[in-house]
């Protein structure tokens, strides 16, 4: 028990050191960055339209082939998911996106969707 608590304390110290050293970037998206990241992380994807989350940490993009791609900030990095149309619901001026093992997201509903 004591060893386990000591290990957890060690984890906390290392995390605190990482934070103190400045390893805590939380980048925000703008349209240009979202398009560049999508092309980079999803080879072959060409963004035609996009909508950004209010906090700049997510974007839903529509490709030139009509497919939807979600870009989502995780720490200082980004993850992408192809989004089936059934995973997107529109409520007035908001879009809700639900994907397996993914946080529920809300974005401003764009005119193009």
């Amino acid at each position: 028990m004591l060893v386990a608590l000591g290990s957890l304390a060690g984890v906390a110290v290392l995390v605190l050191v990482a934070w103190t050293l400045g390893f805590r970037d939380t980048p925000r998206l703008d349209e240009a960055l979202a398009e560049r990241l999508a092309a980079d992380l999803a080879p072959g994807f060409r963004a035609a339209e996009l909508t950004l989350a209010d906090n700049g940490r997510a974007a839903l993009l529509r490709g030139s082939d009509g497919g939807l791609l979600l870009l989502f900030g995780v720490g200082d990095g980004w993850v992408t998911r192809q989004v089936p149309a059934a995973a997107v619901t529109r409520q007035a001026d908001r879009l809700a996106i639900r994907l397996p093992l993914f946080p529920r997201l809300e974005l401003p509903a764009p005119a193009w969707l």
Partner: protein
Amino acid sequence: MSLPNPVTWAVPAFVLLVLAEMIAVRLGARGRYDWRDTGASLLMGFGSTLAGGLVAGAIAAIAYALWQHRLFDIPVTWWTVALCFILDDLAYYWFHRTAHEVRWFWASHVIHHSSQHYNLSTALRQTWTGFLSMSFIFRLPLFLIGFDPAVVLFVGGLNLIYQFWIHTEVIDRLPWGLEAVLNTPSHHRVHHGTNPRYLDRNYAGVFIIWDRMFGTFEPEAERPRYGIIHNLATFNPLLIATHEWLGIGRDVLAARSWRERWMSLAGPPGWREGSTAAAIKAAAGVTGAPVGPAHPAE
């Protein structure tokens, strides 16, 4: 006989080296850290230690039960320990290769690859479910051959310690021809890369010669993009530990035939959605041709 667990003794060095790497990166060395990612990796390592402690007795019991039926009485000398180290590393190669090519084993191993960072804390991001996936079965032949289980577990610990320091971008390439023989930071960066040409390559633990022998070697030629094909959208340790098992459960339940059920369990990762390593390589125009012994050593 009884031998110490070398990993326990190495933990203070692990901590100091993570600290040293963080400072080196802050001062401009190549590498990336994120405090949330580091926290997740370290908690995975902590949980893995706890899980390992829970099943250690069962694994030791299996090991000694098999050893009772050993083919040879192998004495414990310096050269048998060295031989055991080499054979254990060969067993590790096949475990590791299977862990990437069969989803059941991947469900445990994917945890180690689930960070988009590649630093010394990533080395500690370890599975909680290795016993469930039965990854220990790859070491069983060593007990049957006749190596003392204490020796096998000892050299397994040394293997694990060796693999810690290669999880870094700070070190470029090793001198003196070591890249030809040893698994190095450069070779292992390739292993953690999701670039199409890097998928399912460089499975070695200590000796890269196994990859050269069995046609899975790939040299580092372009900067790796780390992580997995569908990177996780969370730092939650519980989800990190179980996400692939949940995916298997979902796919087995959705399967419409016994073949689909079987492939959801034992097919290559990504089989159901068509994103296997082979499919990604083919789409990217990577031949995937084996790079074996004929490949020139660095």
